């Protein structure tokens, strides 16, 4: 199972910035169990956002946000509302956020950090990858993960090694930062790249002793 933890509300509000109309999209799979997705968390987030002066344009729950077919089909019904929303706050793991960003041309914000992929994964049928770094940066990179898409996991932009949009490590692999650049250009958020990202806290990749004792982490424990 993909284990996720809610980002602090302050961090979420900071990342939403001046955006007023927010669509809430929650996952009913692993994230529901971790209480980072699901009905209960979605309602709580709705209240928090309204309290902060945001307008929640709509909410939607999808069983597995990591399944792009499922997400695209379900969101097709919400197109009108989505068109009038500034962004989507996605209540799920890193894979789910990337899947949503892939199927809809909207700014996405992760509401959770993915801490552990555990032994058992969600549906996860495609190219999106999450390293469970515990400090989700998908908000800043337009929903494309720099940790898994960039061969060097760079956080502050491309190295000088990409040629014709391909990675220096593998000519058949897209440069992750080129994808991020194009995506941010497309959703009008190129200014995100100007922000200096601090070095990662690698200790956040280690599941806490508390988590290790739960059945989220160890089904036999």
């Amino acid at each position, binding site marked *: 199972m993909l284990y996720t933890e809610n980002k602090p509300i302050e961090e979420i509000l900071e990342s939403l910035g001046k955006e007023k109309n927010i669509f809430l999209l929650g996952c009913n799979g692993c994230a529901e169990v971790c209480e980072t997705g699901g009905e209960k968390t979605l309602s709580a987030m709705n209240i928090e956002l309204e309290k902060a002066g945001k307008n929640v344009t709509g909410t939607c729950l999808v069983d597995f946000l990591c399944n792009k077919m499922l997400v695209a089909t379900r969101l097709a019904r919400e197109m009108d509302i989505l068109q009038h929303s500034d962004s989507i706050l996605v209540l799920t793991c890193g894979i789910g956020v990337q899947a949503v960003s892939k199927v809809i041309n909207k700014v996405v914000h992760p509401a959770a950090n993915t801490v552990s992929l555990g032994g058992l994964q969600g549906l996860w049928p495609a190219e999106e990858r999450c390293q469970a770094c515990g400090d989700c940066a998908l908000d800043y990179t337009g929903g494309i993960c720099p940790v898994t898409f960039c*061969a*060097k*996991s*760079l*956080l*502050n*932009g*491309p*190295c*000088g*090694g*990409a*040629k*014709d949009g391909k990675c*220096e*490590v593998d000519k058949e692999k897209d440069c992750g*930062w*080129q994808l991020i*650049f194009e995506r941010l250009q497309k959703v009008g958020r*190129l200014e995100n*790249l*100007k922000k*200096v*990202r*601090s*070095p*990662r806290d*690698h200790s956040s990749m280690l599941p806490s002793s508390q988590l290790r004792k739960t059945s989220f982490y160890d089904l036999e424990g």
Partner: protein
Amino acid sequence: MKLSELFKQGKFVITCEVGPPKGIEIKKILDELEPLRGKADAFNVTDLQSSVMRVGSLATCRLLKDRGLEPIMQLTCRDRNRLGLQSDVLSAAVLGIENLLCITGDHPKLGDHPAAMPVFDLDSVQLLSAVKSLMNGKDMAGNELEGQPPQFALGAVVNPGADPLEPQIIKMAKKVKAGAEFFQTQAVYEVDKFADFIEKVKHLKVPVMAGIVFLKSPAMAKFMNENVAGIHVPDEIINELAAVPKEKRVEKSLEISARLIKQLKDLCQGIHIMSLGWERHISTVLEMAGL
């Protein structure tokens, strides 16, 4: 002498690249630099260039210093985490090194130990910030350094030929913000394109040194065009080199480089020569270029 001082004095700065050997016989490459004494202002010592294991930058920098030649220590993020990098920065200061060039580094997969773990705990922007923090007396974790903090001139790199160029320039601005005081570029063969780049980064008000790589043969130029990011040798230059008989190639190649330097000189604040084994020809090129 810090490179930043030379730029402040308005000097047109000349640096050359030195690749330490694979093996411990280092005298030869140091001797080859002797003709450049008084001509080049400083020497970049590469840090396991192209991810090929060899003698390190730190030791070689100190040997240059002992000979009275000014070293620039290249520091990549490829092989060390933040503990190792910060420690090596302090070690460099202890050994009297005053110039650091902070770069991401090639991926290990491109080198002679492709199975090595790629570290990249920090990226180049974060490395610059970390060194800046040490210069202000604190390590990355916020712990105070004892006594006088180290002082360096901090350099960084940029690729003016990258396509798209915009992300490179955004990152360059971040590097300036993080503490970079001068930039060296990837090899330049297209003067117009370089002039456009300079126009786009003028607002950053930071010295830029244009990169020069000697073209040893038309085949090398074609290889770089196909394989090296951000390098484009125009057909005219390749044809010019191909048109002369083999025994005249070296002369022609040096002539091309000298001409490029002359054309680039007024656009930037210095040049950085990556001679790739042709160290013995550098002084000739500088003379031909009137430097």
